[in-house]
């Protein structure tokens, strides 16, 4: 019956087919330039030694890591063909994919990886988390695509750490990694294996990446940062636009196609605008209030509990994130494999009277509590202002000290200078990456119980066992840790609905470091 129908009205059929095909063709075409309005120039693109998000956002198109996170924040291989852990977990062997090319035409081999990992373990920001556990990295004598790592004990966070490019182990050329030290690598050495290659950087005007034609994409369905990557767009231009209102105006005017980090209060208007797509980055970030456990008033655990008890987090979150927030005391959002409510009965008690009573019980007598906050980032400033206000009204004597970021970073490193300070924290794939767990991070949480739990957490393999330890660790944080979490907040980006497609779609949500492979210009 279908055949007779086709015979009788071939034009209709042809028309239907044409419409169907053009629907597919209109999507996903090659070509064009994507103009991204960022908050400012990155300091550099040597991703191993920088943790600012715009460096990761831009650099991830140029440099690859061994693993990468999928849409559920789970690590999947990117540059690896396979890997295998030994029975006791201390020996891990890796096999690289073959035929992966650097932007200068050289093929990726174990020599490049080993040199990069060595540099990262010594100087990389996140490398210091893994370095104490690594005994050696060995090349294979016979196969240039194989290498192995020997750990002192099973190291469970390995895949997650390898998947996190923010201060993470990006793979550079062997000759570049071997000579690299504490200082950033030169622009001429921005040679990676990613879908885009570094072309040009004029600070204050733009940073240009162009498609790498010989890119070898991983196979498999696209999921999160992983899976198939098609560089449809010819050229990516990252333009520093410091003023948020200008970033928005620029997208509306047609000068930019994507804009990063806009004030959350603009969300209702932007959402209503049909020409603009809004993107809430997942997972959410959060603000933190740290206490100085080394010296000064806040060494007192009870006083710390009192401070947390006094805080009503909803107004704090509203002032920081507008309507784009969620009250969540767990360090991971609901839906994450690491989500747990252990310890969170102490979250958001919002009871200033009981707090003051507890404080007096702790021996607090109205002494000055120094609270250091940065004015450079509005989220820090807004959070700090409301927190200081609430604590003052509860009866604490708060000395709110506002400095620019560079000063805050210097002061917070000195335990004589502060009692509380605030900063932000992005979503991370593994609890070991949470900064307050590092005893050297300002706050200096370093008790025997905590060290024991962290060691146990790091060396336990098997997710269920690790999760149980994590629950204990989170509960311990609430009991005696150095950090108060305020709640989850979402970062707001936008793109032009008319000009850009393929962003923030199923299986490829808007993640913390927005990526532009698989996107296309309409």
């Amino acid at each position, binding site marked *: 019956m279908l055949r007779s129908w086709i015979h009788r009205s071939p034009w209709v059929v042809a028309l239907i087919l044409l419409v169907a095909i053009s629907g597919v063709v209109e999507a996903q075409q090659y070509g064009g330039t994507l103009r991204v*309005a960022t908050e*400012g*120039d990155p*300091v*550099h693109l040597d991703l191993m*030694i*920088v*943790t*600012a998000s715009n*460096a990761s956002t831009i650099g991830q198109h140029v440099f690859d890591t061994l693993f990468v996170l999928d849409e559920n924040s789970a690590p999947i291989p990117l540059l690896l063909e396979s890997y295998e852990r030994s029975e006791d977990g201390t020996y891990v062997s890796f096999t690289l994919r073959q035929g992966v090319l650097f932007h200068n035409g050289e093929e990726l081999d174990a020599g490049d990886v080993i040199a990069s990992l060595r540099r990262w373990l010594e*100087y990389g*920001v*996140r490398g*210091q988390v893994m370095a104490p556990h690594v005994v050696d990295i060995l090349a294979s004598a016979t196969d240039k695509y194989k290498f192995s790592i020997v750990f002192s004990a099973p190291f469970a966070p390995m895949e997650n750490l390898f998947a996190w490019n923010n*201060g993470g182990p990006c793979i550079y050329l062997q000759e570049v990694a071997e000579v690299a*030290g*504490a*200082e*950033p690598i*030169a*622009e001429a050495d921005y040679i990676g294996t990613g879908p885009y290659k570094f072309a040009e950087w*004029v*600070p*204050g*005007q*733009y940073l240009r990446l162009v498609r790498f034609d010989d890119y070898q994409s991983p196979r498999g369905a696209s999921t999160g940062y992983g899976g198939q990557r098609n560089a449809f767009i010819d050229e990516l231009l990252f*333009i*520093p*636009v*410091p*003023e948020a*209102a*200008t970033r928005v*105006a*620029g997208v*509306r*005017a*047609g*000068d930019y196609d994507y804009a990063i980090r806009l004030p959350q209060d603009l969300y209702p208007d932007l959402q209503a605008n049909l020409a603009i797509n809004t993107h809430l980055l997942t997972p959410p970030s959060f603000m933190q209030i740290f206490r100085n456990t080394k010296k000064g008033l806040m060494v007192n655990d009870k006083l710390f509990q009192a401070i947390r008890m006094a805080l009503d987090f909803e107004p704090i979150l509203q002032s920081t994130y507008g309507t784009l927030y969620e009250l969540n005391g767990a360090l991971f959002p609901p839906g994450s494999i690491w989500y747990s409510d252990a310890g969170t009965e102490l979250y958001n008690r919002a009871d200033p009277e009981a707090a003051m009573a507890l404080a007096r019980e702790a021996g607090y007598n109205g002494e000055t509590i120094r609270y250091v906050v940065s004015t*450079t980032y509005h989220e820090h400033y807004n959070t700090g202002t409301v927190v200081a206000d609430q604590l003052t009204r509860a009866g604490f004597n708060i000395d709110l000290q506002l*400095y*620019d*970021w*560079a*000063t805050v*970073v*210097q*002061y917070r*490193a000195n335990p004589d200078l502060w009692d509380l300070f605030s*900063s*932000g924290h992005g979503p991370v794939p593994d609890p070991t990456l949470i*900064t307050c767990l*590092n005893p*050297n*991070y300002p706050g200096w949480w370093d008790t025997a119980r905590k060290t024991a739990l962290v060691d146990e957490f790091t060396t336990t393999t098997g997710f269920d066992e690790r999760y149980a330890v994590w629950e204990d660790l989170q509960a311990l944080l609430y009991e005696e840790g150095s950090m108060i979490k305020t709640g989850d907040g979402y970062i707001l980006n936008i793109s032009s609905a008319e000009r850009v497609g393929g962003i923030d779609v199923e299986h490829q949500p808007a993640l913390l470091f927005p990526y532009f492979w698989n996107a296309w210009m309409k």
Partner: protein
Amino acid sequence: MAGYLARRFLAMLPTIVIVLIVSFFLVRFIPGDPAAVMLGPDASVDQIEQLREAMGLKQAIHVQFLRYIGRVLQGDLGHSILFHRPVAELLVLRAEPTAILAFLSVVVALCIGIPAGVLAAVKRNTFLDQALLVLALAGISVPAFLLGLLIMLVFAVQLHWLPSSGFRSILSSGNIWNIRYLLLPSVTLGFGQAALIARLTRSSMLEVLQEDYVNAARARGVVERGVVLKHALRNASIPIVTVVGFTFAGLLAGAVVTETVFAVGGVGRLVVEAVLARDYPTIQGIMLVVACMYLILNLLTDATYALLDPRIQYS
């Protein structure tokens, strides 16, 4: 006159030395650590120390200073901590939009301000005078980013006549049409400057219009317009030249707010970025170059005084 200028030129040197010394030590007094800023929020204390060592920040301060002076004498302004390129190269790159912006905005300011000021002086105490007063005040009191944002919303977002923000180099691309990126910012800046120029022109003209030589010209039968333009304006120009002189100089150091709003990577923005990142070499480089520019501009301004008013003599 030539001798005076030559002596002024030589006198610039002590000023430059003062600037070099003070800028070097002054910025290092300010708390804050360039290495910590570079590594980002999650770095540990050890890593920061490691980077400081690598950057040469742990040497004794007088050693650092002497090395700096040595390099400056060879024409090397140092290496930017933040941008990882020579400071001199960075300054040239960022100076282009700032210089063009300064020039264009002064042109806009003069084109609006002087006629407005002359008109207000001639029509003194009439409604026109008051209206121009209010308009002039609007120019100076409306915050620059508000004005800039409004101009951007009207001409770029609604009308699509010009790009809303950003900048592309004219010199390196050879494309003269890139100047369109600077048109909206120039108008924004110029409008604010126009107010000051209009007010000064007005008050200056008012005084000059009472002078004897003006009355004498009128008595001779010179047409009123000739009186105003040829005799009065020329003599009223002295304070205007002064203002243009250091307005231009001030703009060369960059109009930070306008550059920020319109995402123009100029010197003003560079100062803020460098200060916030404690990029000592860049800060010092900027102060040195700006000081030299002010000195040269002052020379030019003084020379212009002599041209405008032959009675001014330099001993």
